[in-house]
């Protein structure tokens, strides 16, 4: 991909999509598309599917990771391409959202026999596809959404259904979950437990690899932190011009300490660390949960607004998201939110995948811990937490995170012949974020 000749980020983004679309005309047997957060991955999945059916008159199947993702994709394709017929393939007794039934060009089928034999777009989750009994006419294109969350052994079970494959996903996020014993395959870089894009590339290094080089969601100020920390080998830029998205605030009548956190964002920072006095708190930290709520309430009090491009809009509950590491922390925040702000989406990071909000507040996974540990150091989780916002994000923690990281020695559970040391990468990413925020004067101490 050449950057020099193409002038704007938008143009570069579009060119990348053209390249992806082009691989299908070239008849590439497989394509791996690495996408940083907010780069329009789902839009690419939609376009690939639309092109496959609409322009190339093919049979296209899409495999998602969860039912919710399948519903969402079906909704988007049917809504965006009203002239194309899409099919949602679902389990007999699966409850589907009401609004899907209302879409004229979307048919919900419960049996494989009800799937069309000819050109179509068929959407389902990967597990459902793998349980297809008997055969269906071969699909021309199989698109896997969130491919880095599909372990290779599951990919293997649906591979026989199609002729060409497009694996689309974010390599920096949470890895596939495999709970059973996998010692015998640990050394194998193309093992059944490995995310299918990595396994495929390992077996066939010549598979076409493309990237989406532009994030529509993240602003340049955020990319500056997120890219080196979580995507060291994936170069990308922000679509938004610096300063094109901002937070507006009215001046407060009486100043409160929390205002420092808001003002620094108004001044242009998209990523801010808010530190409370150091304490070992365990999972639930009442003071921290209250701080999160205080920020939200203060935003409303100061009549915060968003300026995105030229579009102003007021900040309300729907503009804000809160992400935590644990369910108990989610409950603690929800309990404290006043009714008027119950629309704020508060969830664990697992439930935040694929979602975004203009403003995000993060309960730092390492806050208040006596010790860093592998679970909490997981880079994929912090990456998701820090890449949900399109305007600004506050990372709230007890101070001392950097010190704890420096005192921590990753246990070093190494696997022979495997270069990736997940625990170290996570540790390094966490440390990078902490040190960079400090170095850039992004730390507000309460």
């Amino acid at each position, binding site marked *: 991909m050449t950057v020099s000749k193409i002038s704007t980020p938008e143009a570069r983004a579009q060119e990348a999509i053209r390249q992806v679309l082009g691989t299908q005309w070239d008849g590439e047997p497989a394509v791996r598309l690495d996408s940083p957060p907010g780069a329009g991955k789902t839009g690419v999945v939609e376009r690939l599917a639309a092109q496959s059916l*609409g322009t190339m008159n093919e049979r296209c199947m899409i495999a998602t990771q969860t039912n919710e993702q399948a519903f969402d994709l079906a909704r988007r394709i049917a809504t965006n391409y009203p002239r194309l017929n899409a099919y949602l393939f679902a389990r007999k007794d699966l409850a589907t959202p009401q609004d899907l039934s209302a879409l004229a060009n979307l048919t919900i089928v419960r049996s494989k026999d009800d799937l069309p034999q000819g050109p179509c777009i068929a959407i389902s989750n990967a597990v459902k596809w793998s349980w297809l009994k008997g055969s269906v006419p071969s699909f021309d294109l199989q698109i896997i959404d969130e491919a880095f969350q599909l372990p290779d052994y599951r990919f293997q079970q649906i591979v026989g259904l199609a002729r060409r494959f497009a694996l689309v996903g974010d390599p920096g996020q949470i890895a596939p979950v495999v709970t*059973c014993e996998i010692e015998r395959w640990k050394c194998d870089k193309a093992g059944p437990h490995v995310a299918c894009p990595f396994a495929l590339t390992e077996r066939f290094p010549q598979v076409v690899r493309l990237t989406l080089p532009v994030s529509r969601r993240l602003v340049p100020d955020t990319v500056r932190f997120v890219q080196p920390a979580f995507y060291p080998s994936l170069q990308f830029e922000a679509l938004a011009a610096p300063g094109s998205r901002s937070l507006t605030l009215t001046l407060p009548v009486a100043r409160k300490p929390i205002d420092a956190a808001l003002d620094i964002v108004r001044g242009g920072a998209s990523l801010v660390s808010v530190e409370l006095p150091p304490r070992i708190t365990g999972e639930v930290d009442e003071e921290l949960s209250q701080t999160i709520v205080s920020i939200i309430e203060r935003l409303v009090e100061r009549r915060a607004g968003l300026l995105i491009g030229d579009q102003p809009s007021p900040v309300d509950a729907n503009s804000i998201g809160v992400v935590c590491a644990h369910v108990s922390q989610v409950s603690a925040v929800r309990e404290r939110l006043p009714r008027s702000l119950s629309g704020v989406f508060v969830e664990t990071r697992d439930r935040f995948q694929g979602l975004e909000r203009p403003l995000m507040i993060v309960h730092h996974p390492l806050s208040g811990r006596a010790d860093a540990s592998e679970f909490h150091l997981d880079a994929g989780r912090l990456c998701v937490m820090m890449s949900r916002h399109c305007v600004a994000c506050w990372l709230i923690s007890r101070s001392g995170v950097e010190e704890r990281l420096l005192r921590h020695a990753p246990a070093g559970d190494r696997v022979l012949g495997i270069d990736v040391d997940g625990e170290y990468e996570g540790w390094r990413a966490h440390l990078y974020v902490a040190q960079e925020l400090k170095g850039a004067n992004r730390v507000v101490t309460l």
Partner: protein
Amino acid sequence: MAVDLETIARLVAFDKGKAVPIASDLQIVIQPDALVLCCIALAGEDTTVHVVACGSIGKPAEFLSVPDPRFRDDQYDLFAWIGQRIEQYYADCRRRGTHPQIWVSSDAAVKHLDVLSDRLRYNRERADVRRLGELLTYATERFPVGGQQALYAATSALRQHYATGQQAAEDAHLGTLLTWIDPPRKTNILAAVALAEQTPMGMKTDPEFDRTKLDPVVRAYNEARRAGASTAQLKRRAQNIHDALMTVVSPIYDATQAAVEILRTRWPRRLLTAPQLQDREAQEFDNFMQSRDNGFFLPTRDKPKAAALKLTEREIALQTVEAAVCIGDRVALAKARLAGRILEGTIENPRRVWVRPRVFESTFDLISSQRVLRIRPRDELILLTDPRQRVLVRNVERQGRRTRVQLEIIKGKNAVGLPSASSIQVFTPYVPDWNSLTQARIQLAERLAVQPWTHAENGAMPQRVPSQLPEPADLLAAVEALR
């Protein structure tokens, strides 16, 4: 992470100076004819067996050693000896339509068997040694699969039932574990444990022992052998080695037997799903032995197809077993409740709502005071006491310390009916589906029958086949035009 039951149990055990139960039912199925096998390797040489103790549970051991396992023929003879006993045991199990069960002392001992089986089953020099490798492979391949009944480490088996007041990693030593379970009177538990720790309980001898006791007698034997000593002299020196090794292997055998005895006698409540687990094991055993009869090869590395099959099997086995344990065992249930994976609470407002002619929705609310709840709208749950009833989570609302969950019955409306108001009910996300493994195997066989290039070993990528249709000038515009 929140405080879990394991931590509580360890705290209580530490306080008491004695191990405490961490299960309510026996979590395993002990075969009455199970075989206890204790092998000791020569330090550094993981594929050797210097001495072996072998016997059925509750019975005394037979012992055999070789003076120096680095002498191949002697070593092979020892393997053959073990092989005969295993062969007989397996044949006996087959005849009775059941499955074998081997008990070893610890995870280290399991690893030792794994190393041996991996190596011996490819032995080209002696068929009887190869056969031992193959038969042991049954046990070692089953070991990582959830719910397996073929191979037990006494330490892991005890740990499923007891929590000690030491670190989990320290429980890997059978001696310390037994000391916690039955602490000696009038001795400080920590001192007793420190003492117990000095006796090896795995598959290795202690380096100090090697230096002071074993090495001298092995040297003496080897010197005599090199010098062409008489049979009687060699026999005497071999006996010295045997005597030394006995001091190591005998306590390990006794400890392993003691562990089995504890589980057999102190845990009367059997696991509800014991019959299913046994049936499954017997089935696996039968399949395995049939394959051996048919001369099927045991591969070194898994091809992608075999890997996919095995991983799927393991995942399903684990899910099935975890769900199974949750149903019967009170501690497992408590753990799941604490972690918020199981929903328990009081029923409010059970109602039937008319939707349209002859169609009713059966709905009710459940008020839970669980501090942590991992339930979300559109989750599906099953009534713990009657798996015929399936419910759908319609809404979850936290009200202070409690959570109000709105549930709709989607299966078993008539078979089970609405729960009564003010009753306490428990719902779980899964129940063990004992058929799921068989069904998965059938399905996988079908889906993996044809292996396209993506997973073919040493396969080549197919050529590109460009589209025959005329390609639009601007692909993106062409797609946008489809809107």
